[in-house]
């Protein structure tokens, strides 16, 4: 980029920001955002202008100031986060940052008559604030993604309760689809519960699972192997006739897994398994 990094322009701009700091912040925070009275907004504006001034007196190239100068980055991040929490659209925040451009260009005009210098200063301001606008957008979408991820994992945990049916017998009623993220959560909470309850039999009830394709079957098989590695037995219940047909048609081999039609049948089987291992006390307890 033509001459944006020459020290003369940087010095001029830093001086503009120094001398007109309050006026700039006021101009910008006032009309552009609609609530010029907000002291919070005014303070953020002052902070941003001051951070930009300091960065310009430093040695970091203009193209990297927004990305790498910690004070500038912090000022922009906190400003966009606050606006996002207040419900502002990311485009409005980005526009507000870009409005600072006009304010700064106005101040430059007041400071120098030299049109070549004005032009170079304008280029610099453009480069600086365009990337600032982009950063506010990025902060917004990163925040949104984080919230979505958090909600997603909370939902996963909520939707997979492990219940204790009997002494040494646990059940997980699965409802909805079983993708790989969900199956990891199910496996994890089931295995932890097996350990905590010293469970000997875990029943996975799939009455609420709409379809069983090869991927779902794979996840079920994995869960069964993990349960067995822990030293417990696994029974799959709630296989509806249509699902049984699909499983057969797909050629999925569940023959080495104990399967039952209903949860009640599965519980009876679990009792039998407990009895077989020679512990009548465990069943009656």
């Amino acid at each position: 980029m033509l001459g944006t990094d020459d020290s003369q322009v940087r010095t001029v701009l830093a001086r503009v920001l120094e001398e007109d700091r309050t006026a700039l912040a006021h101009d910008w925070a006032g009309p552009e955002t609609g609530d010029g009275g907000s002291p919070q907004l005014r303070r953020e504006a002052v902070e941003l202008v001051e951070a930009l001034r300091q960065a310009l007196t430093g040695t970091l190239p203009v193209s990297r100031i927004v990305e790498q100068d910690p004070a500038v980055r912090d000022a922009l991040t906190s400003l966009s986060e606050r606006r996002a929490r207040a419900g502002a659209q990311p485009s409005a925040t980005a526009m507000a940052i870009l409005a600072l451009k006009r304010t700064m260009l106005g101040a430059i005009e007041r400071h120098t008559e030299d049109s070549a210098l004005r032009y170079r200063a304008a280029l610099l301001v453009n480069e600086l604030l365009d990337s600032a606008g982009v950063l506010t957008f990025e902060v917004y979408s990163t925040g949104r993604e984080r919230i979505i991820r958090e909600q997603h994992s909370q939902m996963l945990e909520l939707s997979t309760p492990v219940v204790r049916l009997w002494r040494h017998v646990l059940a997980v009623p699965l409802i909805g689809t079983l993708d790989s993220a969900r199956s990891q959560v199910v496996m994890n909470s089931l295995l932890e519960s097996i350990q905590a309850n010293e469970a000997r039999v875990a029943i996975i009830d799939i009455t609420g699972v709409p379809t069983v394709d090869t991927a779902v079957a794979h996840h079920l098989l994995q869960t069964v192997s993990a349960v067995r590695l822990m030293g417990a037995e696994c029974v799959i219940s709630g296989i509806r006739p249509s699902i049984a047909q699909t499983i057969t048609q797909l050629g999925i081999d569940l023959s080495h897994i104990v399967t039952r039609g209903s949860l009640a049948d599965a519980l009876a089987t679990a009792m039998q398994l407990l009895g077989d291992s020679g512990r009548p006390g465990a069943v009656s307890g």
Partner: protein
Amino acid sequence: MLPDERTTPSGEHPVRVEEDLLAARHAVRAAAVAAGFSIVDQTKIVTAASELVRNAYIHGGGGTMTVESVRDAAGRHGLRLRVRDEGPGIADVEQAMTDGFSTGAGLGHGLGGTRRLVDDFDLDTAPGRGTTVTVVRWKP
């Protein structure tokens, strides 16, 4: 212009003698704990590291392991392991990635299985050029 993956190096570990396998595992465990991974994720990462360094030790005649904490453009944190050896390299990559295939000790799940324990998996190898495996596990 946007910040790309930023990395913090947390060290290079030799994989020369058998004791190094254990030391490498400890280093990865410490890095995974420091990065705040869950117990399950820690276990997966350390197991993946164990498979990779053992491969480098047995098939590659030794090498090095690098552990780095990384961050992607979306702000996600992750742990990156890079295990490099100057061994004979792998001629048939597809075969090496298949479960049940192994040219040395172990069960042959070294690569195919390890790939399932991580989010990103990259294998760089050719006969006579050694083998470099780079894996990343991202924090959910």
